[in-house]
């Protein structure tokens, strides 16, 4: 089942943060189970992401990737399993209010951007820090402008979402998530809705983020990105992780027929 890669082993050699950080597990999910009605959508999914690592999750549509990411930040509650953030066990049965603090330690970026359409790019970014962390507007704006610099959109600060291209919207969404100073970032097929020429700018932003040492869990079918940036690749099928390992071994030497078929399909 496992490709033998211990999740605690040093990060992939291409990873800029390799060796720079102690291999501390930043986020861990143990045997997550999620059912919708009588369908078991996640059937014991485990993952341990070390600090600064990039974990890629691949798998066919409907295999449970989004459901798993939503369980990691508790947008939906798993029916069984355990979550740990930086070694601390998270009580998944707490009330929604009590989960908010955990949730803002974990940034999430969605396929459909989900920017707030009635707010400018800048307002989108400062909203949550002002409400949740109660930072002053001046402080929030200063930090937001820094983040807009980082995603190369400072000149678009006053633009509303409908005035931005898909790639720009997605980069604002990344900046918005980063404004909460998360310790982990989740990306759910964030380039899937984008035209090919716009995917690159979003992937470049994600590369920068990985280079800065952000712990990232990325559902993506951008294979060159996965190959270059991921420390570990997990292949999901039918609500289980059926293969895991270094990108090259997963993509070039699939063991299971499911992964072979999947790789053949996305490579053509």
């Amino acid at each position, binding site marked *: 089942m496992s490709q033998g890669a211990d999740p605690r082993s040093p990060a992939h050699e291409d990873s800029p943060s390799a060796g720079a950080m102690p291999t501390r597990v930043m986020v861990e999910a143990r045997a997550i189970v999620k059912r919708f009605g009588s369908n078991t959508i996640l059937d014991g999914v485990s993952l341990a992401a070390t600090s600064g690592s990039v974990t890629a999750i691949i798998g066919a549509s409907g295999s449970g990737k989004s459901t798993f990411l939503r369980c990691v*930040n508790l*947008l939906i509650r798993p029916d069984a399993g355990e979550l740990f953030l930086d070694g601390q066990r998270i009580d998944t049965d707490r009330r*929604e209010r009590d989960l908010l603090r955990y949730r*803002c330690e974990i940034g999430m970026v969605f396929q459909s951007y*989900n920017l*707030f*359409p009635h707010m400018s790019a800048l307002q989108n970014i400062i*909203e*949550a820090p002002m409400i949740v962390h109660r930072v002053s507007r001046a402080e929030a704006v200063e930090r937001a402008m820094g983040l807009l610099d980082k995603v190369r959109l400072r000149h678009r600060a006053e633009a509303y979402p409908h005035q931005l291209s898909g790639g720009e919207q997605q980069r604002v969404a990344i900046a918005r998530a980063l404004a909460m100073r998360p310790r982990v970032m989740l990306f759910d097929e964030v380039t899937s809705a984008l035209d090919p020429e716009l995917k690159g700018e979003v992937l470049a932003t994600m590369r920068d983020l990985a280079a800065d040492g952000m712990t990232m869990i990325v559902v993506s079918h951008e294979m060159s990105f996965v190959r270059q940036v991921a420390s570990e690749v997990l292949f999901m099928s039918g609500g289980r992780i059926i293969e895991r390992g270094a990108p090259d071994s997963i993509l070039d030497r699939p063991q299971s027929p499911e992964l072979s078929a999947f790789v053949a399909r996305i490579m053509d």
Partner: protein
Amino acid sequence: MDEALSPTMDMIISLWPRFLDATLLTLAIFVIVSVMSTTIGLLAALATIGAGRWLSMVLAAYGWVFRGVPELVILLFCYLALPQLGLDLGPVGAAVLGFTLISTAYEIEIFKAGLAGVHRGQFEAARALGIPLPSALRRIVLPQVVRIVATPWITYATGSIKRISIASAVAVTEIMQVTKQAIAFSHQPFTLILFASALYATMASILMIAEIIAARRFKQRFGLSTELP
């Protein structure tokens, strides 16, 4: 011309204070009913988010009664039947209660549709950022609901203003009541009904113009149409 029109003008001028009072009363009832039904309708629609099935069933039953029974029947019930139960609100009070009950049933539907029109990704993004639900509703969801409901809300409000004429049946001295009284002693139904129509048309026009301004503002500010996508 002047000779022929002057008796009519004289009548209108002599009745003007009563028409003015009636118009102000109509507007007052409209404002009170709109504020109360909009507030209750919005809160009830918000309460259905994540609430159990029983609340939806209670609201459905409420809507069935107050959208199904004719307005006049509800007003007469509030004016004539409630005093029998020990609740005598007087004509204006009964009209305000009756119209509020009716309008609330429609406002609930308007706001439920408005909430359903907000992409569920918006709720998810707010939750993912750790924003508590009350703040998310106030800052993120409601502004989008306002955009969606602007047109149906004003359409309904325009009808509401006209519907207040029914209160003449429960002895409220609103515009229609004053018109009927004036017809009774002046025998000038044509002019008086025309004049009453003009008053209603003016009030409705103000609301319709408000809608056009609101739509233009949304468009300029956010590039958003008030039409549903």
